[in-house]
């Protein structure tokens, strides 16, 4: 079954966030990975780009389909996971670790309050 680490925050779009100092690391959940299947290309923004909550910041191509990545909160991109360029399969094998995608410095702190707890996200997934 899907697992949702307790130290993370979640979104309706099956993304997770992990506090990294003043920035937040963003990836996609095991549930999303299971639905996508094998991932072949991850396209990410550049460091320094500004992203807006709910807007597309990247795309994931799996063998079968293409999906957008939506910014969980507004902010500035402070890091991207360059390993995914050559090893997109990290998202499949380690969605909560080596498969992370970007780090964001939030510009609207209040948006963080809208993120889901692991329990709430678990209920969200169960209802899918």
């Amino acid at each position, binding site marked *: 079954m899907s697992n949702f680490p307790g130290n993370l925050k979640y979104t309706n779009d099956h993304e997770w966030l992990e506090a990294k100092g003043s920035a937040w690391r963003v990836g996609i959940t095991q549930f999303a990975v*299971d639905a996508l*299947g*094998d991932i*072949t*290309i991850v*396209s990410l923004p550049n460091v320094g780009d500004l992203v807006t909550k709910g807007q597309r910041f990247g*795309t994931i*191509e799996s*063998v*079968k*389909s*293409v999906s957008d990545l939506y910014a969980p909160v507004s902010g500035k991109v402070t890091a991207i996971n360059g390993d995914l360029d050559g090893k997109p*399969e990290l998202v*499949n094998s380690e969605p909560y670790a080596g498969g992370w995608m970007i780090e964001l410095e939030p510009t609207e702190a209040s948006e963080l309050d809208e993120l889901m707890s692991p329990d709430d996200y678990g209920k969200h997934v169960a209802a899918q």
Partner: protein
Amino acid sequence: MDRRKTPLWDAHKQLGARLIDFGGWDMPVSYPAGTIKEHKAVREAVGLFDVSHMGECYLRGPRVREAVEKLTTNAVAAAPIGKAVYTLLCTPSGGVVDDCIFYKRSDEEFFVIVNASNTAKDLAWFREHTHSLCDVVDVSDDTALIAVQGPKALAMVDALANGALAGMTSFTFRDAVVAGVSCVAARTGYTGEDGFELACANQDAPALWAALLEAATPLGGLAVGLGARDSLRLEAKLPLYGNDLDDDHTPLEAGLGWAVKLDNREFLGSDVLRRQKAEGVKRQLVGFRIDDGARAIARQGYGVKAAPGPGKEIGVVTSGGPGIVVGGAIGLAYVPSTHASAGSTLTIDCRGKDVTATVVSGKFYKRS
């Protein structure tokens, strides 16, 4: 409505398959190994596919050859007994009703395997256009179908048949007992690899599947889902009905002229196809490879333009995906014949981004 289940549904569940709705059937899209590993297992060893959702029927009767002659673009009726023949079924205007394989069992009996999504349509088509020349017997609900594909498939299945399949050539079939199960064993497939497709009675399918999986596992074989079935057939440039074939395009436009035998024959669509062959096709299905560095995959429905920028669409992508063994991103598209020669540059609108691709001739993957 509940999805239909093949007789191997429990086996898929046990293997941990991810099941999806495929034309009303609850089918495995992948197993825990994942599509890429499953794809590679077929290229390097052997893969097992449950394709029991496909439709099967018999056409029977003293005048069945007259009926079959009228239905098929390929020379099916005149084929030798024991031959499996890939053919198109066409409308009078030359569009494709379906692509399928006819197995000539005798001068009075053909076994036919058709696409799952077209089973009802094809059966109705057969009944309508064979008139009273033959009986049409639908056995889809009683028949399971397992494909065994890959470089290790022939020896593996032949061993399970105690050598009864030795000496079979490509596109022939035989009644045989495989792992104790009575089957029609055909040396056919949809992956670009050698192998067999085994049709058996529903109730025997779980035992056959279990024996095949037991034999395949030590060889590096895997159960393979529909995800890899699609990526494998794309690399081998085998068209998929509903993507690359439909009643809007003719077999000649789809590059299937080799399966259209027009000499001294009259069949549904033959007049249109004869004229089109003489005049040349104005559009055709081509294979393309996305140019390096684009980091994009062109998918079904994406528009094709002659050049980047705001120009009108000249064609459409019908299939696309990663080339799992051949690398890069590959696909099929209908384009005007003026843009169809190998080396032609196409521009594909990948969700608002212009991506260039190059037309390639032949299969993306050809087994050595």
